[in-house]
């Protein structure tokens, strides 16, 4: 019975010119967003890979220099795009992509697409995720608003039920039929995206990407399912198709526009974050309490020198086997890095608390559940961004400390000497590995749980409501 009703809904939908026009538009947008996403992804990826290769090359091919000069010469870390970010750019366009790595300073990630692009980007990008999260639900609303209302209005519901079908079976048949119609619109775009992902040489296609893509598809399938169920329930609850349409559009506005904005503002109000200038000032002020490697009069440097003289049993710096300057630099770097890490962790904790309000709102609003799940699976959410920042800082710290130790090993009078060019070729270059799905999943448990709760709760409660709908 459910199958027969589903088939009827599917065939009727395909023969409905209004649906054909709307779905053709949505499909065209999806395909366009996939192709544009791929082009932009390809261009950015190539640009960043080339830039990373160039700066790595320049770093390793420096002439004979003092190690501390090399530490100040620094390098750059470019954030590679994840494969699935072609479907969901997430926060990538607004977070930076490049960080300058140098001694004493933990620079922020700069040069976001939003900074580099025209003002149009501020209106939002037409990504596949945008179409899937907001426009496909709109298509579903236009498809389902009359699911029960029209049956009531035309009297076909009584004819259906007189055949021995239950209201619950009619509802499930409709949900299945509409689901097939929606799949017909969405599947070609996702198939195209999968093909581009797995045939494009630039994408790191592997089991991790495949698993992310599968979960991405399953996540959206659940999202569309619950929107279909919700629309069918509203159409049964309201009975009048026009009232059902207005109600559903109201829910769409509330869930897609008003609640996300409201929760983001609430997060920022409850957990205000300090500005970058404020943080830099605070880090600088606190770092001053540590050793200053560039100040020969620094008392703490003098104390370290005394300790070294004692350790090596010599009476002057000239007789030390190590460079005091290098070790002072090492101590100074360790201290300033610790200060920075504390501030960085505090700032990130604030951002995470802000984001958590939106993520918890996923329990009230499915759009706010699919959005973090989609970004997380695409590797373009805030957690992935922080992962890159931490990796870049870990590399910077390791490199600078290694250079400080090279300096320390040069002994007294190191400032007058240089290390050969071959030294720099032995230093590791920045080679960022995108985090795996196993790393990402714990961050996505709440959105997954929210979506599942919505799907199960709405099916259970909604279908109970439908089965109690008045027939006459």
């Amino acid at each position: 019975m459910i199958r027969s009703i589903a088939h009827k809904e599917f065939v009727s939908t395909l023969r409905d010119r209004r649906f054909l026009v709307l779905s053709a538009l949505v499909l065209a947008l999806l395909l366009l967003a996939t192709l544009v996403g791929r082009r932009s992804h390809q261009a950015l990826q190539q640009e960043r890979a080339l830039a990373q290769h160039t700066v790595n090359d320049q770093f390793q091919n420096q002439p004979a220099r003092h190690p501390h000069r090399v530490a100040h010469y620094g390098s750059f870390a470019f954030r590679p795009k994840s494969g699935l970010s072609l479907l969901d750019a997430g926060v990538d366009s607004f977070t930076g992509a490049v960080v300058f790595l140098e001694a004493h300073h933990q620079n922020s990630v700069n040069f976001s697409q939003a900074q580099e692009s025209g003002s149009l980007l501020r209106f939002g990008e037409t990504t596949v995720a945008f179409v899937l999260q907001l426009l496909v639900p709109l298509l579903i609303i236009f498809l389902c608003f009359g699911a029960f209302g029209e049956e009531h209005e035309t009297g076909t519901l009584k004819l259906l039920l007189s055949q021995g079908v239950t209201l619950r079976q009619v509802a499930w048949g409709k949900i299945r039929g509409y689901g097939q119609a929606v799949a017909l619109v969405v599947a070609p775009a996702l198939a195209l995206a999968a093909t581009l992902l797995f045939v494009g040489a630039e994408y790191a296609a592997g089991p991790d990407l495949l698993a992310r893509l599968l979960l991405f598809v399953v996540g959206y399938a659940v999202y569309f399912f619950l929107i279909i169920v919700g629309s069918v329930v509203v159409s049964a609850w309201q009975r009048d198709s026009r009232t059902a349409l207005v109600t559903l559009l109201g829910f769409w506005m509330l869930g897609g526009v008003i609640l996300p904005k409201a929760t983001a503002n609430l997060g920022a109000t409850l957990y205000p974050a300090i500005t970058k200038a404020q943080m830099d000032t605070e880090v600088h002020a606190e770092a001053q309490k540590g050793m200053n490697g560039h100040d020969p009069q620094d008392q703490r440097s003098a104390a370290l020198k005394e300790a070294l003289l004692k350790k090596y049993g010599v009476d002057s710096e000239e007789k030390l086997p190590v460079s005091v300057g290098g070790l002072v630099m090492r101590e100074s770097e360790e201290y300033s890095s610790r200060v920075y890490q504390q501030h960085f962790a505090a700032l990130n904790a604030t951002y995470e608390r802000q984001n958590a309000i939106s993520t918890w709102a996923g329990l009230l609003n499915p759009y706010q559940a699919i959005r973090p799940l989609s970004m997380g699976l695409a590797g373009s959410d805030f957690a992935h961004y922080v992962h890159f920042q931490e990796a870049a800082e870990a590399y910077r710290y390791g490199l600078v400390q290694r250079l400080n130790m090279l300096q320390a090993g040069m002994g007294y009078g190191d400032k007058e000497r240089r290390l050969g060019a071959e030294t720099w070729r032995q230093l590791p270059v920045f080679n960022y590995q995108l985090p795996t799905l196993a790393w990402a999943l714990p961050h996505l448990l709440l959105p997954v749980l929210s979506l599942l709760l919505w799907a199960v709760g709405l099916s259970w409660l909604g279908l109970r409501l439908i089965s109690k709908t008045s027939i006459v």
Partner: protein
Amino acid sequence: MNYILEARELRKEYPGRLALRGLNLQIAPGEVFCLLGQNGAGKSTTINLFLGFVAPTSGAAFVNGVEVAAQPLKIKEYLAYIPEQVMLYPHLTGLENLSLFSSLAGFQYKEPELQAYLARAGLSTEAARRRVGTYSKGMRQKVGIAIAVAKHAKVLLLDEPTSGLDPKASNEFSELLRQLSAEGTAVLMATHDIFRAKEVGTRVGIMREGKLVDVRPTAALNAHELEQLYLTYMHD
């Protein structure tokens, strides 16, 4: 005697309105019982109660000995229903509509069988292949009749079934009802059409303000007498 349809003190009350006041009715297999009455007299409520679409306030309705309120799904195996306006699904053809409704009732017919049912209801092969959205009211009604016939139900519940049919189609419908009645199908038909009731009915019942005020065998009255009887009750 075994009745296929039975109402015992059936009463239905809506907020602020008493739709049916203790209806007692028995219909035997092969009988065509026509319910006459003005709008709001309780004819459609009676049909809805037998279909299980509304719950009785008190009393009980039985179909083939099964209480409707207790087993609303079971009784639908015995029933077929034709509403006043058969709307169907406009994007499906007549054949597809019939196939859908038959499959929901548990009958999987092949196309020639579906064509035969539609032809028996008076719909041409060419029309059967067209989408229902292009049909007239009468053509949709014929598909509705085919749906009811294809279900091989023991009882037909008809709510103003000839409304909108042209005289030729109405006559064909009457003939079909006579055939089904002869095959043992019981019919409960709510109608305003006194002459059609006299023509196809074995008994007529006159309803007024939710009460069955008179029941007569049609054989005992001619059309004029039936009309006079009806008007008498309506003017009292």
